[in-house]
């Protein structure tokens, strides 16, 4: 008989099926890997799904709930356990026990066992993925994956990457004991980088610091305050937090609802002063749209009533928006406002206070009246101060309170530009900033349930100019002839109006200026409100709004001595 009849026989393909079958039996009979990778992930999923707060959607998570953000993390956890804890074990022990050596004397190549392991593990992974997604969608109402192609690609890449690590361990380890040791060493750092847990209160910052390519790094570049690039108007107005807000911070869902971050405003009660217009109005609307009840006050009752009506249009049930008349410079009115809102909201505490009300005026200590100066200072500083007095006990009672005081870029820099002093406004805004910063240490020591933030807006499109004029008794429409002529003279003197301009010219210019200040601002009031709410949620204490605010902040830090030498101050500041 010729052996050529036996030439190049190949192992029957059915043999591969038999190997897969036996590997599957082994996986089933030694279920530690399956239990840990699939069972534990499912258990965590069920636990997270059962925590009500994890089900609340948050604009900070791009409109997802913490639970939903956790699903992919649990999927990678599941794959990681299989690839690292379970895959190397059998392969190393097959080598250790001589099974691979025995196989290499048969027609079947030893790598078929590797391939069979791959098939079994991949099936287990698919089961894990389907179970995790299925249970979260069917059982807990999570949104179904919206990009199946992306999901498949992510799964393939994750499996390939983790398999490569697992197989490298199997190749490097001489004994199964060594494989287990290496696996344990590799597993925990990998889970750390995947964002499963971070032993730190601010995981995003820590991950950004260590991982230059981490997606979270792209966001929130401004430090310590927040980035204030304008967002498309529709995004902010829609109340979803804007495009910039779609930040995924993987470990965040693991954090307790602590004092450093606020996941959501849902179900809370916020107080907003100056809610009749500008940033105050937008804060009320956006808070309400995010499920937060609001008590808004303003010196103009009609304006704040209109705000409340606008806000109610965007909200669902369970959110109460009330409007109150209150001049914050009068402590008695602030206390009445406090009592009124507690009654109407039937609460014994408040969670958030936005001391936002402010006006201009009293620019010149030399020329302007003492009454105007003191009225400006009273609204801008004492308004904040009385609110703190009135509401701090209620914030402490909340257990997780935030006091947000609005200062200004003029709290960093006490001028408005050449020929335009800001003595009352600057003094008040410096005072607000100083008061708020001093409260940081005070609260940390004496009332850790409450934190504070100071808002430093640059030019934001608000009605502060007409509000200021009205607050001091004159609207541009109702100026007397004498007042208008005084204004004309001032404007001519500042070189804004030409010589020989009439009083009517001055009124027109004033009205146009008021309109332009609001409409042509680099940051709209709605965008500013979004930035403020982002900052509050993230735990920032210093919230800068606008490139102008950041530029001035940088300039006065770089050259404090030149703060009021405008040419010098802004000479080397790079355009933001």
């Amino acid at each position, binding site marked *: 008989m010729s052996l050529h009849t036996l030439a*190049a026989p190949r192992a029957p393909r059915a043999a591969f099926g038999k190997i897969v079958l*036996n590997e599957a039996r082994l996986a089933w009979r030694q279920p530690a890997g399956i239990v840990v990778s699939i069972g534990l992930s499912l258990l965590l999923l069920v636990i997270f799904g059962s925590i009500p707060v994890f089900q609340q959607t948050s604009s900070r998570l791009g409109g997802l709930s913490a639970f939903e953000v956790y699903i992919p993390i649990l999927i990678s956890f599941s794959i990681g356990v299989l690839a690292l804890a379970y895959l190397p074990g059998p392969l190393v022990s097959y080598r250790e026990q001589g*099974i691979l*050596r*025995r196989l290499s004397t*048969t027609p079947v190549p030893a790598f078929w066992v590797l391939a069979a392991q791959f098939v079994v593990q991949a099936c287990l992974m698919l089961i894990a993925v389907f179970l995790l997604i299925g249970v979260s969608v069917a059982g807990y109402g999570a949104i179904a994956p919206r990009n199946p192609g992306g999901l498949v690609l992510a799964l393939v890449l994750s499996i390939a990457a983790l398999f490569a690590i697992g197989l490298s361990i199997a190749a490097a380890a001489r004994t199964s004991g060594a494989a287990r040791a290496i696996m344990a060493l590799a597993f925990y750092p990998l889970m750390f980088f995947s964002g499963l847990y971070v032993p730190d209160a601010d995981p995003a910052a820590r991950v950004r610091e260590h991982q230059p390519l981490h997606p979270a790094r792209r966001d929130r570049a401004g430090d310590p305050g927040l980035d204030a690039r304008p967002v498309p108007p529709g995004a902010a107005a829609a109340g979803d937090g804007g495009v910039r807000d779609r930040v995924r911070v993987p470990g965040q869902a693991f954090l307790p609802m602590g004092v450093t971050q606020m996941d959501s405003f849902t179900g809370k009660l916020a107080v907003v002063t100056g809610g009749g217009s500008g940033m105050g109005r937008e804060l009320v609307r956006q808070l309400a749209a995010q499920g937060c009840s609001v008590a808004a006050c303003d010196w103009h009752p009609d304006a704040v009533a209109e705000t409340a009506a606008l806000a109610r249009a965007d909200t669902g049930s369970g959110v109460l928006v009330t409007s109150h008349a209150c001049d914050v410079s009068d402590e008695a009115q602030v206390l009445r406002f406090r009592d009124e809102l507690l009654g109407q909201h039937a609460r014994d505490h408040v969670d958030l206070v936005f001391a936002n009300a402010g006006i201009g005026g009293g620019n010149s200590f030399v020329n302007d009246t003492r009454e105007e100066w003191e009225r400006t200072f009273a609204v801008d500083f004492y308004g904040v101060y009385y609110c703190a007095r009135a509401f701090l006990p209620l914030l402490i009672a909340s257990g997780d309170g935030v006091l947000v005081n609005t200062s200004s870029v003029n709290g960093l820099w006490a001028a408005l530009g050449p020929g335009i002093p800001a003595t009352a406004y600057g003094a008040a805004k410096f005072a607000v900033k100083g008061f708020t910063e001093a409260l940081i240490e005070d609260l940390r020591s004496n009332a850790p349930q409450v934190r504070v933030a100071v808002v430093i807006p640059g030019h934001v499109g608000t009605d502060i100019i007409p509000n200021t004029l009205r607050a001091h008794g004159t609207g541009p429409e109702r100026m007397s002839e004498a007042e208008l002529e005084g204004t004309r003279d001032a404007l001519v003197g500042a070189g804004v109006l030409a010589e020989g301009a009439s009083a009517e010219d001055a009124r027109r210019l004033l009205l146009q200026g008021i309109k332009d200040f609001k409409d042509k601002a680099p940051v709209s009031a709605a965008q500013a409100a979004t930035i403020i709410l982002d900052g509050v949620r993230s735990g920032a204490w210093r919230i800068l709004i606008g490139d102008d605010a950041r530029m001035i902040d940088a300039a006065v830090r770089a050259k404090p001595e030149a703060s009021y030498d405008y040419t010098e101050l802004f000479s080397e500041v790079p355009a933001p």
Partner: protein
Amino acid sequence: MKTYTSAVEISHLRKTYGKLVAVDDVSVSVAEGEIFGILGPNGAGKTTAIECAVGLRRPDAGTIRLLGLDPHADRDTIHEIVGVQLQTTAFPAKLRTGEILEEYRSFYRRPADVSELVEALGLAGKLRDYYRSLSGGQRQRLSVALALIGRPRIAVLDEMTTGLDPQARRDTWELIEHIRDRGTTILLVTHFMEEAERLCDHVALIDHGRIVALDTPAGLTAQARGGKTVRFLPSAPFDDRLLTELPEVSRVEHDGQHVVVTGTGELVNAVLFALRAAGLEARDVRLDASTLEDAFVALTGTRLHEEHKEGALT
């Protein structure tokens, strides 16, 4: 057209591990259908030699042909026609005997009948048992079964009956003879003399990597000590010359009251006849044919079961 002359042809095989020469100039020729034994103490190089033969190790020098095929160049064919039982093979603890057999059966294109094989090896009642619950002997028999499951043309069995009880050992021998009768060539590594004498057509004695003798078991025995021994207790003392004059007798010795006579041919008859003629009787007669073990001791100067402390590489 037969392109080979013997089933296994090993010539001038040499394999070293560093400075240690495990196999040194070993040449062996095994005819088709015979059972060929490789004997030697631990560390003699037996296992290294057969691992080279089945392609698990690359020899440093020499050639190996199995049915005319090279273990490396023709490894696909070799794996199909050579069944191997290795000394140290384990299987996953949580697989059942039957599942392991079915898996290995699927590797071959013309596999053996599992039920016949397990019946002959006494594993029929163990098919549903997990590997981890099998005794050492049962594991050994499973390993033999897996070596034979592909209906190999050559079966290489390394210490196949180690750990088996006497009955299981005899059953396994019967199976091996049966397999051989169907035309399978068997290469048997063993250190059981009884096994080699019972099964092997030819035996190679290996010591320190070299072949010290190559013959049939009977030939080796004769080579070691030409003859047989009769041992008895005489009814009365007698003159040794009574026996030394017999042509069959070569030597007479005394062991206490016992007499030990060594010789050839019809030694027992000649001795007993001479004693009776002298009016003596022999009691407690024992006839000892010299054994392969004696041959081994004579040829290598070592006892087979002694542990070699040095170079225990098998």
